[in-house]
């Protein structure tokens, strides 16, 4: 139980007194998540929803064991918050903050590779183990315990798919939003490995997007190692080429970053690919029924 990285026991919230931090601390606790403390630079000694506020993570660690931190600190101060969490050797860091400058994340990445911390995000909706805990901002009411592992680059698309899986009665074992930012922590392959080796996961849903190659790397992993069924969708079929991509991207393999290319590559790796997000749950349902 303790070895399960996605279901940490003692959790803190960095930026707990901000409006998003306070609102979602309450929601996480309502879902049964064990929030032991939070940080806020100027409000140490206060309480948010009965959770004690400290000035720094080091201060918290004098009183509590910390297994994971959820970061709600605004983008302007997110680099400092991420550095603080890495310096405090927090095993799992989940960064919800959206809009962190890319150069700040390059600095965080460089620091992260020299540490033992694992980062999910930034711009991540967080992770959930339905029925047990939730770290981040995934709406409580859409989560239902089940045996499907969901990994997604997009927050809101995750909700879309999770809500549909729950409505269908399938439910989810884990929901992991890896975040849509270009420079980030865990990627698809890291999560697929976890789902593949976890006996409580029967099938996998992966939701990708245009841009970058991580879905193509995932396809390589799946064709080599995955024995569990995978259902996928890539958002952005109607996106114009090159809009969000830089000039070098346009030269080097922009075709490989398109929704069409990724879809075909995942299909060849054995993934059941859907052309609309609404087709995912029926596809999973069919696979689970055929398995019986």
């Amino acid at each position, binding site marked *: 139980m303790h070895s399960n990285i996605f279901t940490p026991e003692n959790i803190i919230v960095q930026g707990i007194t901000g409006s*998003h931090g306070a609102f*979602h601390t309450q929601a996480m606790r309502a879902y049964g998540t064990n929030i032991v403390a939070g940080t806020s630079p100027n409000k140490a000694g206060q309480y948010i929803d009965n959770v004690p506020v400290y000035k720094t993570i080091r201060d918290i660690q004098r009183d509590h064991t910390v297994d994971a931190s959820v970061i709600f600190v605004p983008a*302007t101060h997110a680099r400092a918050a991420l550095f603080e969490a890495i310096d405090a050797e927090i095993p799992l860091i989940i960064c*919800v903050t*959206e*809009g*962190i*400058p*890319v*150069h*700040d994340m*390059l600095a965080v*990445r*460089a620091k992260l590779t020299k540490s033992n911390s694992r980062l999910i995000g930034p*711009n991540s*909706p967080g992770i959930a183990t339905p029925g047990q805990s939730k770290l981040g*901002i*995934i*709406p409580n009411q*859409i989560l239902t315990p089940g045996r499907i592992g969901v990994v997604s*680059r*997009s*927050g*809101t*698309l*995750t*909700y*879309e798919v999770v*809500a*549909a899986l729950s409505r269908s009665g399938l439910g989810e074992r884990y929901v992991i939003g890896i975040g*849509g930012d*270009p*420079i*980030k922590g865990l990627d698809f392959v890291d999560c697929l490995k976890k789902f593949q080796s976890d006996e409580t996961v029967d099938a996998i849903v992966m*939701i990708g*997007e245009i*841009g*970058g*190659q*991580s879905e193509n790397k995932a396809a390589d992993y799946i064709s080599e190692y995955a024995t569990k069924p995978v259902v996928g*969708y890539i*958002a*952005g*079929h*109607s*996106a*114009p080429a090159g*809009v*969000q991509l*830089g*000039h*070098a*991207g346009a*030269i*080097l*393999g922009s075709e490989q970053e398109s929704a069409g290319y990724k879809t075909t590559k995942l299909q060849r790796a054995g993934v059941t690919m859907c*052309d*609309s*997000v*609404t087709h995912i749950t029926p596809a999973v349902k069919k696979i689970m029924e055929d398995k019986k």
Partner: protein
Amino acid sequence: MKLLEYEAKKLLAASGISTPKSQLITGPEDDFLSIFPTILKSQVLTGRRNKYGGIQIVKTQAELEQTLPKVFSADIEGYQAVSVLAEELVDIDQEIYLNLTVNRDEQAIVLLAHKDGGVDIESQPVEAFFREVIGVRPIEATALTLAEYLGLEDQEFALGELLQNLLNCMHTNDALLLEINPLVVTADGKLVAADCKMELDNAAAFRHADWDFYDKPMSANFVELHRNGTIATIANGAGLAMATVDAVQAAGYTPANFLDVGGGANKESILASFRKLMNYPRLEAIVINIFAGITRCDEVARAILAARDEISSLPPLHVRLEGTNIDEARSILSKSGLTLHASLENAVGSIGGNNA
């Protein structure tokens, strides 16, 4: 956001990178020049200026007066010159392509170079480029390998200094992309940035109070897809916004835009989005697809009511709301006559039907 050439070159110069002597011409009447011969370059946010008459060489004042209005009026893929940059001609010995981009697959900055810079760089085979991930080796080592690849062994130190200056320039200015094409090796052995493309990180605007460029930040979350599109979209989260556009297109309609209102969008920011969409001439409907996490449905609901109050020509709204504070949103919209669809499929399906 993208910079105009002259804006990018100012930042280059501030980082110690050589650029040609130049003068900015702000209008066709502003035709006093001290440099001849000069190359006139249309300042537009697109490439291929040369192909559409956006680049002209003039040798005399008379030629300048005749040519300048043409450069200003040249239609370059739908763009017209914001201003014209007049530059001295550099004495070219070799033209090199250099590109530094934040690369998501490497999670680092990647350097690309080619020994034959110029306009046809995109048709060069991938294998012909010099490519190196920055940060793995000392920059001096990269410069040495690059000098050998370019056949410019005598420029090793100058290239090393240039690379360091370019990286500093990216860092100081929060640049995601910095491309010099061509980087000119002059007859007397100097390295001069003859053209420059630069793209800055909108997310870093908070620490650059001095940013005042022609292109404005905020454009990343709003992309025009079809000027004459009939269905506009408003969604939250890039993925859901893309999926919404995908669904509109899959249903046989022409989507006008991609719009991600972003996490934590509020009534005012969503209302501003509605106003923006009213610029599309053939709009027949707006699909709103919000799955709220950090966003709150009640804020969206208030924005919808405000938009209906404020914008008289607002087309029918096909709304799908779900997630945080959905119950409050339902009660806010209870008297609006709007159907709140349970899924994206239903919302798109209701366009042209009776269920709007």
